[in-house]
């Protein structure tokens, strides 16, 4: 590996170490672990939590709720994008609704949803409502940005609609779908956890975080926050990996 490549790969790690260092120095200077514990103590707390079944149950429950919301948004958002690109009337009909989803403060939506449904379901709907406009807008943009030259080529060589879809439209759409997934998942996950903190569904990370804050268990609060950050990063990396694998499989399939 070249020195430059090594340096490029090391930069994020160095940057992370730097900021952990800053946190450590501030915590040591402040000497108030109730307000700001050191990274070491937070890490120890996280490890002690990670060996309990309750922690993993909470992680699993929260993930299931939020992932359900995101998957629903991916399905509905993709379908809406296709429909609103084809039928202008539907676009006019849904555009204000999706703008509303984008602009309404998350906390307002959380409180409103709490009035209409059980608090257990709110994080699911919040994750879906955050992800839906992002997915819809990205995929619609991808559908509208068709390469007319390639479509003309397809017309000249009498490609069937099925071939045009699989070999031209879908590959052109992939980057937009990838961008939609990456943006939506991160935001929806954070909003889903925020909804849990406000709705307090039993056995969720949000509820555990709220309890930590209530009893001033700052180390625990930091540990839960760290776990949410790590899970968020992991989800993003896994999604990226899955999308890359799908793309590769498709390419291999084409080559076969």
């Amino acid at each position, binding site marked *: 590996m070249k020195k430059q490549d090594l340096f490029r790969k090391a930069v994020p790690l160095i940057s992370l170490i730097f900021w952990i260092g800053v946190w450590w120095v501030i915590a040591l200077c402040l000497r108030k672990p109730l307000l700001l514990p050191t990274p070491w103590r937070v890490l120890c707390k996280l490890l002690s939590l990670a060996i309990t079944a309750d922690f993993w149950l909470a992680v699993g429950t929260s993930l299931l709720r939020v992932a359900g919301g995101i998957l629903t948004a991916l399905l509905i958002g993709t379908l809406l994008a296709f429909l609103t690109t084809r039928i202008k009337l539907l676009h006019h009909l849904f555009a204000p609704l999706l703008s509303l989803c984008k602009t309404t403060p998350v906390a307002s939506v959380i409180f409103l949803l709490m009035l209409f449904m059980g608090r257990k379901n709110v994080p699911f709907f919040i994750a879906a409502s955050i992800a839906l406009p992002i997915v819809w807008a990205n995929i619609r943009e991808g559908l509208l940005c068709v390469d007319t030259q*390639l479509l003309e080529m397809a017309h*000249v*060589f009498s490609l*069937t609609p099925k071939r045009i879809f699989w*070999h*031209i439209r879908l590959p052109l759409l992939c980057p937009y779908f990838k961008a939609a997934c990456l943006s939506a998942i991160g935001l929806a996950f954070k909003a889903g956890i925020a909804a849990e903190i406000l709705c307090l569904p039993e056995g969720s990370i949000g509820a555990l975080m709220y309890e930590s804050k209530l009893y001033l268990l700052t180390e625990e609060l930091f540990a839960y926050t760290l776990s949410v950050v790590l899970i968020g990063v992991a989800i993003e990396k896994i999604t990226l990996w899955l999308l890359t694998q799908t793309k590769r499989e498709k*390419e291999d399939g*084409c*080559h076969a």
Partner: protein
Amino acid sequence: MLELKHVTKKYGEKTVLQKLSHAFPASGTVLLCGPSGAGKTTLLRLIAGLEAPDEGTVQSTYQRTAIAFQEPRLLPWLTCLDNIKLVLASRTDADEQARLWLSHMELTEVANALPSALSGGMKQRLSLARALTFGGDLLLLDEPFTGLDDDLKRRIAPRIRESNPNGLTLMVTHKPEDAALLNATVLQLSGSPVHSLI
């Protein structure tokens, strides 16, 4: 039979072709020459049916038209081989035919490479291979020799000549001297206010 009758084509205020009339021979190779902006590519697009004339008619009795566009228009996510196979629908000999034409265009070594790995001239040859593999009785080639050196042109020209023995091949080029390579008739697109092919 391919006949143009008083064909006029405008893009906005600009008239690209004005009352052009011409009857092409039923078979053989014809080179369409003319300066840049003379309307050669527009004429090819009108013949292919990709655009409609504003006035006049384009009458064609050819059954199947293949085009090598000026820009290669390759699918960047498919290999060279798959780019050709794509247009052969579900023909049983698709792989064989695609490989044959890749070899004719001296592209065998890059059969499994993606177009991004090719030079401009190689992309042009791949686009040409795709059109020739697709086949047809009307073959429209828009500057297919762009980026090719003279030796390569000499080696490829017979393949073009032989690919459509019973139909008409129309080739747009800046170089009338290419006619000798293809045993082609040269038509010069020119004229103002009325266009003609001489």
